[in-house]
């Protein structure tokens, strides 16, 4: 960040790579209250529209031999369902709608964020921290409800030598509470960094000599971001499944 600022001062270029992440009220005014309709609201609403379009209107014909939209909806369903079943186990299937919600929201927010001039809701820690905390709380509550105090066995590595176990328990405990942090920063960090880099390259495109390189670099970064958009949604979802597995089957 510091180097970008320097570049702006020295070269006379205008770099505002982070401006795209600013939250603005949509209908004028400066104050952002709890219920103000902002660009966040708009792009989250668009994500909802996209999810409804794919999952509800795409499947409305209920064909035995699916069309394009229905195929994609079924693919998404099968992809997440199989992930939940394989990673978290058969008894985790009742959490499938919850995990599907997370996946669909993240994947559509990421891809909508790749549209030019759009706002990427998943680039904000406010969003990803809430998502990660929801997962963390769900997993912890489910763990204690299902296993009672047996859930604490997650931190007591019974396969290790007895002398090591207290130390391992502390490490496990720390790693458990670090989970929501890494879970949220991974998603927002990846998305934000990619978008910021594209903006920086776009700033360089103002210089005629380097603009071809810059345009090629933007194209390459965009391709990478398309991958990242899906992979980060996938990673977030599969980690949720892994945590859920720990909650349902805490023994190592």
């Amino acid at each position, binding site marked *: *960040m*510091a180097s*970008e*600022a320097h570049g702006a001062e020295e070269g006379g270029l205008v770099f*505002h790579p*982070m*401006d795209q*992440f*600013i*939250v*603005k009220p949509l209908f004028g005014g400066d104050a*952002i*209250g*709890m*219920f*103000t309709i*902002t660009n*966040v*609201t708009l792009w*989250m*609403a668009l*994500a*909802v529209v996209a*999810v*409804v379009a794919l*999952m*509800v209107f795409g*499947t409305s014909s*209920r*064909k*035995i031999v*699916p069309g394009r939209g*229905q195929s994609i*909806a*079924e693919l998404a*369903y*099968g992809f997440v369902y199989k992930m939940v079943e394989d990673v978290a186990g058969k008894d985790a299937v009742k959490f*499938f*709608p*919850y995990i*599907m*919600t*997370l996946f*669909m*929201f993240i994947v559509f927010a990421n891809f909508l964020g790749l549209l030019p001039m759009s706002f990427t*809701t998943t*680039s*904000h*820690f*406010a*969003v990803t921290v*809430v*998502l990660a905390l*929801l997962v963390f709380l769900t997993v912890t509550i489910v763990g204690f409800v299902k296993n009672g105090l047996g859930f604490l066995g997650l931190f007591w590595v019974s396969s290790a030598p007895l002398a090591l176990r207290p130390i391992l328990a502390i490490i496990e405990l720390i790693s458990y509470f670090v989970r929501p942090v890494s879970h949220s920063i991974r998603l*927002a960090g990846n998305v*934000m960094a990619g978008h910021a880099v594209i903006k920086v390259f776009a700033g360089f495109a103002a210089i005629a000599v380097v603009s071809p390189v810059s345009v090629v670099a933007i194209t390459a970064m965009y391709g990478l971001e398309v991958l990242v958009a899906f992979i980060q949604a996938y990673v977030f979802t599969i980690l949720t499944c892994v945590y859920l597995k720990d909650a349902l089957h805490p023994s190592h």
Partner: protein
Amino acid sequence: MATDTHAAAGHAAEAASAPGMPQLDFSNWGNQIFWLLVTLVVIYFVLSRIALPRIAAVLAERQGTITNDIAAAEELKAKAAEAEEAYNKALVDARAEAQRIVAEAKAEIQADLDAATAKADAEIAAKAAESEKAIAEIRAGAIDSIREVAADTAKEIVSALGGKADAKAVEAAVDTRMKG
């Protein structure tokens, strides 16, 4: 980084395009969290009430259709195998029947043939015997005639030569000659 972010958090309110991370402007977190929760709840209800049961039903229905179709195909295949077996059996039966008929006809013909042959043999034998008898008769008749002719001729020759023909002597001579 730390000072940078602190500065950003501080300045973001006054200068919208100030360098820094808008993500760390905590003043709008409430707004974002509120709208995020609304979004998640809406998506959750749309998915769990409408979309997911519908897709599950479609998938189950497809699975059912496929299973049924496979079962029907299996049934048809079994029927086809059955039909083929029946056909083969009929073929084998027909072939055996044909062979039996052929053998029967052959035996019949053979029997007829044997009977005819035997009859013909018998007829031929009878005819041969008859002919032999006739030949023997003819031969016997011929020998007698020859003897008569020879005796007469001899008598005539003897008398012609001026001798007196003794009938008995001539006949005896003819007999000896004919035997020799």
